[in-house]
């Protein structure tokens, strides 16, 4: 067991990837000299040099597209887009080229590209810097979308993502970088299965990424009140581990999905649709969701807190499914 922060865990994974495979290189804004916006890549330029840790100009479209081209050309690039907010500038390359190339070419070309993005809100960085658009990417066939929510996953999910012959997008919630946890020595090579973080039977709390700690906190409070909640960490957003979701729902017969995206058209909506399709007759209460309110993220702290999912809202939703 080692104690690491999420940031340190991701850095360790990047270092191991760079050291073990000469085809791997990192490309993004301020990943090199600046040490990374979130200090994830700090020290890597010094260790591996400017060819392997490339600072790119502010040209998301070009350097994400270049990442695609380099992957096509035999490299294993890890492109860092500073946040999901700026990824909108590169959306064309991600959706219209990376996701589609294999299919459009009749299977001739694949894009083994990893894109890492910071995501989420909670630090008062206001409307244009606070999006959670994981669901947009999870919508597109051809992409794989991951959301490591624990330090162990931050360390372990990069390797299978790099090994995957198709484009994989890794979402790192900005609030998780300082999270510190014990991690086991063994690596988890799996990037597709959801994980039960807390076993329970009264209600299933399904969540991912930055909402995981809040959900665990809610579960602890519920336990103190005699309500035994199960917490399911999705880990992979596309593909979704539907089997795990249904198993948890069938066991608990009640479900609350916690998702930081805006409620309308959220990933939570997709999950609930699947639950309704396949486990309707196992439910004791309508499925519930806790999402962000339908408002651009405000700057003032109390407003931002009110807009985002919080343990209090999760607890209330869980109790409501129990008729309390």
């Amino acid at each position, binding site marked *: 067991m080692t104690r690491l922060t999420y940031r340190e865990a991701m850095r360790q994974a990047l270092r191991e990837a760079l050291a073990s495979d000469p085809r791997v290189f990192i490309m993004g804004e301020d990943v090199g000299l600046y040490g990374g916006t979130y200090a994830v890549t700090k020290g890597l330029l010094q260790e591996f040099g400017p060819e392997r840790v490339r600072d*790119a100009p502010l040209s998301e479209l070009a350097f994400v597209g*270049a990442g695609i*081209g380099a992957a*096509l*050309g035999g490299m294993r690039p890890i492109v860092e887009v500073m946040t999901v907010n700026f990824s909108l500038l590169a959306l064309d390359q991600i959706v219209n080229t990376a996701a589609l*190339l294999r299919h459009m*070419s009749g299977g001739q070309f694949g894009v083994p590209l990893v894109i890492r993005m910071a995501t989420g809100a909670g630090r008062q960085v206001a409307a244009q810097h606070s999006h959670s658009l994981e669901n947009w990417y999870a919508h597109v*066939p*051809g992409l794989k979308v991951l959301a490591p929510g624990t330090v162990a996953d931050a360390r372990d999910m990069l390797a299978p993502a790099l090994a995957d012959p198709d484009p994989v997008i890794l979402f790192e919630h900005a609030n998780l970088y300082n999270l510190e946890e014990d991690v086991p020595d063994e690596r988890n090579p799996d990037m597709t299965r959801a994980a039960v973080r807390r076993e329970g039977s009264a209600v299933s709390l399904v969540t991912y990424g930055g909402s995981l700690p809040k959900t665990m906190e809610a579960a602890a409070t519920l336990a103190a009140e005699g309500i035994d909640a199960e917490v399911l960490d999705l880990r992979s957003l596309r593909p979704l581990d539907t089997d795990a979701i249904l198993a948890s729902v069938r066991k608990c017969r009640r479900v609350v999905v916690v998702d930081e995206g805006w409620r309308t058209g959220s990933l939570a909506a997709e999950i609930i649709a699947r639950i309704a399709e396949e486990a309707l007759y196992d439910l004791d209460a309508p499925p519930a969701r806790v999402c962000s309110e339908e408002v651009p993220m405000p700057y003032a702290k109390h407003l931002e807190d009110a807009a985002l999912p919080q343990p209090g809202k999760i607890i209330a939703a869980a109790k409501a499914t129990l008729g309390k």
Partner: protein
Amino acid sequence: MIAPPPSGPVPYPKDFSLRLLADMLRIRRLEERCAQDYGAGLIRGFLHLYIGEEAVAVGALHALEPEDNVVATYREHGHALVRGLSMDSILAEMYGKREGCSRGRGGSMHLFDARTRLFGGNAIVGGGLPLAVGLALADSMTKTARVTACFFGDGAVAEGAFHESMNLAALWRLPVLFCCENNLYAMGTSLARSESQTSLTAKAASYNMPAEAVDGQDVVAVHEATKRAQANVREGGGPVFLEFQTYRFRAHSMFDAELYRDKQEVEQWKTRGPIHTFSARLKAEGKLTEEEFLALDREVGAEVGRAAAFAARGTWEPVEDLARDVHAVQEAP
């Protein structure tokens, strides 16, 4: 005012000259067949014909090596043909048949071929440039002496992707040969109506990149300029920008009423047609006779006929295979 037709001696031996002529004729007759087949409903969706621009693909691609990378646009049938895809596989692709180069999944705008390193067939204007930069980046990092030729139109010059890619390629000295096929119109918008600076070479030069304008109707000029440029790029001199000034004799795509340009302008440009002007020069030098030309045309016609028959005989992918090739390994989302 249009310049006079390309003229002057052709500095190539007879067989290479006939190779160039044959390839231009093959493109022309294939494109005409596509137009016909589109009208008959055999080809659907969007179809963009290269008629009038043949000298660019032929002259440029004959100056590249088989191991070079080629990135093209949705007006890429000619590039695919010269690069080495068979007419059979191109036409079958446009018919949507499994025997097509992209298994019928791509259609006219998405011709891909791993063997000849043809990376599309890209339908987003400007979308191929970052891709080309990436391919060149991989070659640069692995020290592979290879050129990535990226073909795009004058319309792409307005997209952010063009500017970002030119900058990145020049900044990192990547082996990209930017080939701009300036046919003066981005769909229905002329260059003059969309660019504050219509000199494309001036734009390229502003990225600290060597840039040259070439008469795109003259296959000799195209070939010579590309030979020089690719040598530079291959030797590590960084990216080069070539502007091929050309013209498309037909509409942007099928079903374009061409309300944005003068019929007279089209007729004037036709006097600079790449095929008839080149064959005239060859005949003047005694490298080609009329009989040889007709024989060649018949041969090309036969190739087109065989390709059409191949495509017609082609099979449809079974619907059960719908979800293949989304990922390397098929799985539920």
